[in-house]
């Protein structure tokens, strides 16, 4: 009697929980998951995005993709930008967090100084660095009588470096905050114990700090990778994909192809490729990093 009553109660609660999940579930499905499948469907057609006609072309768009020099260029630019960001941003964010956690005074001031840039739109960041490189920094040459090339956005060889500086300026503070939060939750006893065991600062860092930071490292590595693969806003107000096509990212290329070039089906194939890339990279990273977490 009692049991039946409680299971009836549980069913009622389960239904109420379901009511709470459903609205979000539906909005998410309509806004993101259905578009994902739409994209796949359109990628198998030659639709131009406007007309009523569309022809099924099978995997032809994908075959074309792998011979498209412009697309491959945008692919490599995005990959280089992502690898550069993941390495620089992680190392700098972790170093900054360690420095802030080392007992220096006015920790709050530094935290705010590094964090504020990420509150600014990437469109604005791109424009600000464009002006810095072209108008403000060259003044240093006049002052010091040096001849440093600050026009990083003007040359195909330096544009990647220039964008990496701008992007890292914007995001290091954000990831630093996550590392800082991770550092501050490492129990002090662990360091004590390691010190008693005779471990030096370097050994303590690799045997205590890094393993304890493992969850934060996973979040930062995956987050920075995804954030870099989707780069677009930063480019439109700074390099516009140039000079030439040297800084055209995959999304930028998709936009040009599908919206300006009216090749919607072909652009959808690019979208699907990027999505597969995102999922694959995240899966590999999470798997690899989680393994390390378990070992620790």
């Amino acid at each position, binding site marked *: 009697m009692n049991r039946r009553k409680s299971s009836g109660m549980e069913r009622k*609660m*389960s239904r109420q*929980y*379901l009511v*709470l*999940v459903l609205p*979000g*579930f539906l*909005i*998410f499905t*309509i*806004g*993101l*998951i*259905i*578009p*994902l499948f*739409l*994209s796949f469907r359109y990628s198998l057609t030659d639709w131009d*995005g406007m007309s009523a006609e569309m022809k099924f072309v099978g995997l032809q768009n994908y075959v074309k993709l792998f011979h498209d020099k412009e697309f491959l260029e945008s692919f490599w630019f995005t990959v280089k930008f992502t690898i550069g960001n993941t390495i620089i941003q992680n190392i700098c964010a972790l170093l*900054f967090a360690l*420095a*802030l956690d080392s*007992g220096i005074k006015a920790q709050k001031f*530094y935290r705010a*100084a*590094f964090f*504020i*840039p990420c*509150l600014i*739109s*990437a*469109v*604005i960041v791109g*424009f*600000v660095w464009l002006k*810095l490189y072209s*108008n403000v920094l060259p*003044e240093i040459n006049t002052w010091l009588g040096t001849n440093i090339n600050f026009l990083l956005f003007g040359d195909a060889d330096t544009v990647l470096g220039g964008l990496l500086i701008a992007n890292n*300026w914007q995001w290091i*503070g954000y990831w630093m905050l*996550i590392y800082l*939060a991770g550092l*501050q939750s490492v*129990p*002090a006893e662990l360091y004590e114990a390691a010190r008693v065991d005779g471990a030096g600062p370097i050994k303590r860092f690799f045997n205590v700090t890094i393993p304890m930071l493992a*969850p934060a490292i*996973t979040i930062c590595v995956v987050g920075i990778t*995804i*954030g870099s*693969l*989707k780069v677009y*806003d930063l480019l439109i*107000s700074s390099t516009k994909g140039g000079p030439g096509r040297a800084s055209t990212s995959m*999304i930028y290329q*998709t936009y040009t192809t599908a919206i300006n070039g009216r090749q919607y089906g072909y652009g*959808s194939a690019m*979208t699907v490729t990027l999505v597969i890339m*995102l*999922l694959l990279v995240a899966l590999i990273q999470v798997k690899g990093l989680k393994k390390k977490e378990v070992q620790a």
Partner: protein
Amino acid sequence: MALLKRKNKNSEEIPSTPYTKTTLITQIIMTIIAVLFLSPLAMILNYSFKTKKELYLNSPLALPEALQFDNYVKAFDKLNMQTTFVNTLFYTAASVLILALLCGTTAWAIARGKGKFFKFSYIYFIVGILIPYQALFLPIYTIGYKLNLTNTRHGIIFMYVATGISFGVFLMNSFMSTVPLELEESARIDGCSVFRTYFTVVLPLLKPAMATLIIMQSFQIWNDYLLASLYVSKKQLKTLTVAIQSLFSAQTSDYTTAMAAIVISVLPIAILFLSLQKYFIKGMTVGAVKG
């Protein structure tokens, strides 16, 4: 709770750490880096007060000759601020409000509900974090067009909610372990429904999580360019970031007005961050530790 205790112990120890030579060197290096980080911001402020004449004749590093707000007045006009500012504020506030409501309840129900559907939902939402909406901008635009969501206020708000929800659910979900189950159970014994339990017991305990969510989503929506530029083409529905981008491409030589526009657009988010900073830092701590 255990986490908070640990944190306290840790922070108690900070004063006892001796301020050594290494600390001093670290402090000096970090100060130099912080000044470098702040200098682009100083440059924005500096330019926003310069006149066009100063821009061409004086050194780029020189301070403005007089404090004048001409650029701000011009920026206000050029950005069509009375429309774009209100629009952006409305889109951001409405989306964030809906997100705060939805993500909290969804994450809590997923954490507490028993059964396959809830487990599946969690993984389902995670997929959304791994695929940022920018990657899907093309079909998102198409579906918006098909459902008549483009060029409407509710359409763009709907999309901000749809694209922000997965991160929000993930974030709130990692906080659910900080809500003690006993409290929920005693509320239930008192006869509270699931809904009332959430609003009277759970929600008040989620303050740091909510602050984190509000800040993160606010600055993302406020700063968004791609979705706003795709969904809105009508002048009276445009957002600030889209208006700023058109200002940038129109005014490449005289950019003092653009710099003033930047200050105006960053200010609201900076104020929000500074006022919620305390909770935000606490929220990030729990989120990062939980993974």
